[in-house]
């Protein structure tokens, strides 16, 4: 579903590459966790995959289509949620969802159905008539999740999706993620919460200073240790 081949990206004025020769493959049905410390290159990778950020070299294929050659077709098949859900604060929740549905050309009946389903699951229905500027961080995150699912994408990319969510909403989001992948979708998300990655992800990749340190099945990567121990060891090793 998502193939990242030898991706490299360097920002102007910086000495080192933000992402350096990164290769990852995410298959349909997989929840793929992307782990790394602050500034490791997770957000840059996710932004490049979502078509927001241009990259210097390498290739990104979504459902077999190159994001460089056919960005619109790729974007129709995926959804992206950034780490900080900066949404249009002057719109109400329902206006925002309707706007996103129009942008993705979702038929009226389908958008009504999906909004009802996900807003109920995430307990946001009552607040949909309020302006987004009255929302808490967690409510914005929930709205961003609903807007990402409204066009039924094949690939979901999320940057730190659990930040700001209350325990119940975080639990619901995990269920939605699992159900999404069980229905054939793929999820690629970054996280700092290693316990979540350990329990939820089918596969994980650890990145440090833009370079891939390790990637594979969660079970294989962690072995007999916790993912936290493995992460700390690997990061220390690559640092040394």
């Amino acid at each position: 579903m998502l193939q990242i081949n030898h991706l490299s990206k360097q920002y102007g004025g910086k000495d080192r590459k933000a992402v350096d020769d990164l290769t990852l493959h995410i298959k349909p049905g997989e929840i793929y966790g992307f782990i790394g410390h602050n500034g490791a290159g997770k957000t840059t990778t996710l932004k490049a995959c979502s078509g927001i950020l241009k990259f210097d070299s390498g290739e990104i294929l979504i459902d077999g289509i190159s994001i460089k050659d056919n960005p619109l077709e790729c974007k129709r098949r995926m959804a992206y949620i950034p780490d900080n859900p900066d949404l249009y604060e002057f719109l109400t929740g329902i206006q925002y969802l309707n706007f996103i549905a129009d942008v993705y050309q979702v038929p009226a009946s389908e958008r009504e159905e999906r909004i009802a389903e996900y807003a109920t699951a995430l307990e946001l229905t009552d607040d949909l008539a309020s302006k987004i500027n009255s929302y808490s961080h967690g409510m914005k995150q929930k709205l961003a999740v609903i807007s990402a699912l409204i066009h039924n994408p094949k690939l979901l990319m999320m940057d730190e999706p659990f930040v700001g969510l209350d325990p119940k909403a975080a639990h619901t989001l995990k269920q939605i993620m699992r159900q999404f992948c069980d229905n054939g979708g793929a999820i690629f998300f970054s996280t700092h919460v290693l316990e979540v990655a350990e329990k939820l992800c089918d596969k994980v990749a650890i990145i440090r200073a833009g370079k891939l340190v390790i990637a594979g099945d969660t079970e294989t990567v962690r072995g007999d240790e916790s993912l936290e121990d493995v992460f700390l060891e690997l990061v220390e090793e690559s640092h040394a």
Partner: protein
Amino acid sequence: MLKTLLKIHAKAWMESMFSRRRGKKHIGVGMKILFVFLGIYAVAAFGLLFGMMFDAMYEPFNMIGMGWLYYAMAAIMAGMLCFIGSVFFTQSMIFEAKDNELLLSMPIRPSAILGSRMLLLILINYAYSFLIMAVCGVVRCIMGPVTVLGVIRYLLCCLLLPLIPSTLSCIVGGLIALIISHLRNKNFFTMLLSLVFLALYFMFCFNMQSYIERMVKNGAAIGAAIQKALPPFYAMGLAVQNGDWGQLLIFTLWCVLPFAAVYALLSHYFIRIATSKRGLKKVKYEAKAMHASSAIWALTVKDLRRLINSSNYMLNGCLGAILALAIAIITAVKGNGILQTLADMYAGGADVNSIAMPFACVVECMTMSMCILSAPSISLEGKNLWTLQSAPLRAKEVLLSKALMHLVVTVPASLIASLLFSVSLKMKGLDLLLIFLMPLMLSAFMALLGVTVNLHWPRFDYTSETAVIKQSASSTITMFSGMGIVLLPVLLYVLLLRKYMKVHVMMLICAAALAIGVFIMYDYLAHRADRAFAKLNQE
């Protein structure tokens, strides 16, 4: 502590007013020269306007033995300018500042936070006050000899004067914040208030000549009224004119005591003011049938919603349309007197009756060129740009939707204004066609020009929308380009071409030139702007 706080507030204010975007691209030399030129032009225009006024006032007031009225009038005008310029700043800087809660959580006395903000307010008012008081002083020096003590007394008064409008701004800003906290549609209220202030300002400008004449004729009566109703300004006038140190002390007390009282009062209630939540009422959602629309219309509606939710954007972006409508309505109701006033002010007193259509057309085009709705529209995406860049949208759809938003507002305003002009000035035939065609072509041109300019001079690192709407390079370039596009053909025709062609021919040529411009920009935005759009906010 006060110094540190003042530094932080001043930095934040400067950032919102003058900061330029980070990154590799800086504003070029040409742009810098343009900005310097515009700055000099604005100061010179102000100086000339007030200089002529003070020049007309000084002698007559002195002749009737009321020389103090000269200084009192200057102080009143400076006070008004400070008040209009700072009242909304007071509201956002003192009562609704975003960092109030952060600063209150630190070991800083609330009175120090408030004091530093009020001090910045006074400094800003010094800048406004300087524009008028400096001209007043210069004209006085030209008119006759001055003494060192006289100059010192005048400078002391100039130092104290901004305390009066600062006190008033704090009171009125506080009242506005209080009223807004009880309203749902705070943007509409803020815009309405801003329009009232602007209307007062324009009324003052339109009638300035008659005010001066009346003041000169009835100086004694006006002086008596000021003495009774505005005693601080009377005291200030006497202190400077007669060298009366007692009156200077009275003026000082008038400036300092109310300011201190307001400071003490606000200090007492500052925590309550700073921590109260405003205008964020929650509404319970009830599901209704939803309707699908095209992506471009969804983008347009989204931008229109941004517009109606921002009083700043509405006021600055739509001011031209509001002015065009106001002038057309006044013309329809009261005849072409307002057009004649404009001709007296800007067209050397030309007789409007003989040039009704072209003059009305120029007035409408000139005001419509001040509509710069599309010029900040890309920058205003700010942190939300990711939504558009990650969605399956072509650059064409995003960019043209912004031009469409501009047209949705300006075209109806232009049609109504043209209709009112055509009926009230009894236009027929080609006149009728041109009064509708020219403003419409100009609106289309301005809509596309704003988007094109903003695409190449975007700014995403702002902390306040005001910085983008009012002071950004794209807004400035678009507005002055629009004015130039209207004024250049007018000057060209009046100075050179009037002997060779009829005004209708000239206007048709201008319409054709605008149509070519519209076509070129449309073609660029629709077919060749993908790369520029993809490059936005890449660092």
